[in-house]
């Protein structure tokens, strides 16, 4: 029957035609009680998110199995550590952007926010350009700066009612502008040993950065699960008008969700800077699309309300495994990009298959 049971029913749409031709009492009908018309819709549909997550995991598993079969190097513990380490920054960024995507909004501000934060942190900790040496405080301030950018994106979007596509794009340009001014022609090399250790020091084979990323993702998940910001973000993405009708200050929570996202971008910028060893203006180039792609592969829908931090992590791992595996399996660099594109599209197709609507309308 309604086997099309669109698990991703559009917001507020009703269940598929529930009416049987039971003689409904109408004008002058005179029919008595109808025999019970047991409806098929009594059975609860399986949570769409579970189906979705399973599909994403399958896509990731297929990648892992194929690469492991082809490349012996892929199967090593060292490579696992390498993959986790390589995924660290993207994981933090994707955690941040998940909050925005949950809202049903989009965030293209990453390149600018990361650029500004990368320059800021490299100028606040011990560096080759000035005499600042704020250490952890500098890192904290940078994360606050990221949050500030996010809040500003949020305020502009909600108060001025500008689409987030435009506000965040503008925010990116502003961030890059600030970064360029801070850059002033000379890259500040990070001399702070604590920050340098993030990339170099290993605990149990994993870099400090990987462990920080795991902690950050866990924090992101907790925010999503246990705070109003996280819960309302999902609810707003599910049905904004209903949340508004319930008296929730939607604009405030949207703004806060952007702020949380910005804080994660700030942390991501610090991690990138630790990894690159100096403040690089373009450190965030392309991260917006990488983070969005990761989230989408994981099953976070651009239309909002579905997915979450953990789902996005599946996508992050899939992207990282793909980049790593293509090199290890010896795919020619000349075709890697194309292969990568094809596999990403396939992964998204597999991962989002269960939520395709019956008429297959895609926007």
């Amino acid at each position, binding site marked *: 029957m309604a086997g099309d049971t669109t698990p991703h029913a559009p917001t507020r749409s009703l269940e598929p035609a529930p009416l049987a031709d039971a003689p409904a009492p109408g004008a002058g009908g005179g029919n008595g009680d109808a025999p019970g018309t047991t409806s098929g819709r009594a059975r609860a549909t399986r949570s769409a998110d579970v189906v979705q997550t399973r599909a994403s995991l399958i896509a990731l598993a297929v990648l892992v199995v194929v690469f492991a079969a082809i490349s012996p190097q892929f199967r090593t513990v060292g490579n696992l550590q390498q993959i986790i380490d390589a995924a660290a920054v993207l994981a933090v960024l994707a955690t941040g952007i998940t909050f925005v995507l949950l809202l049903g909004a989009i965030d293209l501000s990453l390149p600018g926010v990361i650029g500004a934060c990368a320059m800021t942190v490299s100028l606040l900790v011990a560096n080759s350009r000035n005499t600042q040496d704020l250490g952890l405080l500098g890192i904290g301030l940078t994360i606050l700066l990221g949050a500030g950018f996010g809040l500003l994106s949020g305020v502009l979007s909600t108060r001025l009612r500008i689409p987030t596509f435009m506000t965040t794009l503008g925010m990116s340009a502003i961030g890059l502008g600030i970064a360029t001014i801070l*850059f002033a022609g000379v890259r500040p090399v990070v001399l702070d040993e604590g920050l340098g250790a993030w990339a170099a020091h290993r605990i149990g084979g994993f870099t400090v950065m990987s462990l920080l990323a795991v902690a950050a993702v866990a924090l992101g998940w907790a925010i999503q699960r246990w705070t109003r910001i996280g819960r309302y973000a999902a609810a707003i993405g599910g049905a904004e008008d209903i949340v508004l009708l319930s008296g929730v200050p939607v604009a405030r929570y949207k703004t806060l969700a952007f702020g949380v996202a910005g804080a994660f971008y700030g942390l991501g910028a610090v991690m990138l800077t630790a990894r690159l060893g100096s403040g690089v203006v373009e450190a965030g*180039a392309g991260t917006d699309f990488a983070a969005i792609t990761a989230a989408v592969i994981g099953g976070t829908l651009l239309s909002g309300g579905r997915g979450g931090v953990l789902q996005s992590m599946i996508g992050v791992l899939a992207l990282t495994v793909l980049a790593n595996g293509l090199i290890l399996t010896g795919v020619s660099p000349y075709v890697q990009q194309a292969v990568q594109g094809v596999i990403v599209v396939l992964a998204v197709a597999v991962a989002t298959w269960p939520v395709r609507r019956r008429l297959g309308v895609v926007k």
Partner: protein
Amino acid sequence: MAARMNRTRGTALIGSVVVALALSACGGESSAEAEGEGSGSTGNCAPEDITLVGQVRNQTNPYEAAWLAGGDAFAESVGLEQQKLTYDGDSQQQQEQIRQVLASGDASCTVINALPNGDSDTTPIVNAADSADAWLVTQWNKPADLDPTEYERWIAHLTYDGVESGYQIAKALFEEMGGSGGVIALQGILDTAAAQDRFLGLQKALEEYPDIELLDDQTADFDRATALEVTRTLLTQHGDKVGGVWAANDDMALGAVQALEAAGVDGVAVAGIDAVPEALEAIADGSMTATVSSDGPWQGAVGLAMGYCAATGELDVASIDADDRAFFAEQFLITEDNVQEFSDPQLDMSEFDCDSLFSRATGPIAAS
């Protein structure tokens, strides 16, 4: 570096200005057959009427920032200011900026020292400048069949022989490795001429060193973060066999250095191209072996200098040797031995005298 130079060497510059002005005054008299009109291969602009324009992609990387700083230094030396334009790698925006510059003020006394976004962007820039009678020097990118000698005021196009750059650092790298071992190569964006030429240079060097094995070549898009990931993955794959990393630019080389440090690997030689300040520091402290400098400040200054000399009439474009109208400029291999000289760069203002502008030309760009 270049920015710092502006401040610290202000007095020296003023000195050079005086010398330069004196020299240009002498040169000016000999060739000052001024034409009343704003066309032809020599100009008759008063120095103070000249507009100097430097245009690069953006200021967010040290190389292009140094280029503009060099232009500033030259402009200051002749008592002018350089108008700095950046177009964010956007071809449309570059053309628009050129149009605006040419539309404002006296185009025939305008000098443009431009870095075209790509080969195909050069043609419209040249045509726009030509029809406005502005003085133009282009660098790096130019279609092979576009020839400055066919234009009166497109003074010159200069670029660097990427094959040579790739070859020089490869040799330095192989020598550092003792002539044998495995190397991995980090290529630039594969469809750019720079990446292709530099890689050709590596291959040329490989033929001369039979004991060096190219273990793997991967693209890292000229990008530091990408290079870091790629290097780490390649280290996973090739492990101890890696004795050297050849990178098509310094950013990737620095990414590779970071990756080696993170992996706790010692004794792997790394070479890059561009001579960005961080690479020079890395060479000084031994974490990098070699890089090649095109001398960004010189590039930023020499283009303006050529235009300035032509606009004032001290340089007759028609009289320039055809080989110098489109030439490869000299590049410098930087290793531990000579890194100090380049770490503290000084613009030698005498290089911008109107009669020594082409002293760094190493030969005409081979028509291919």
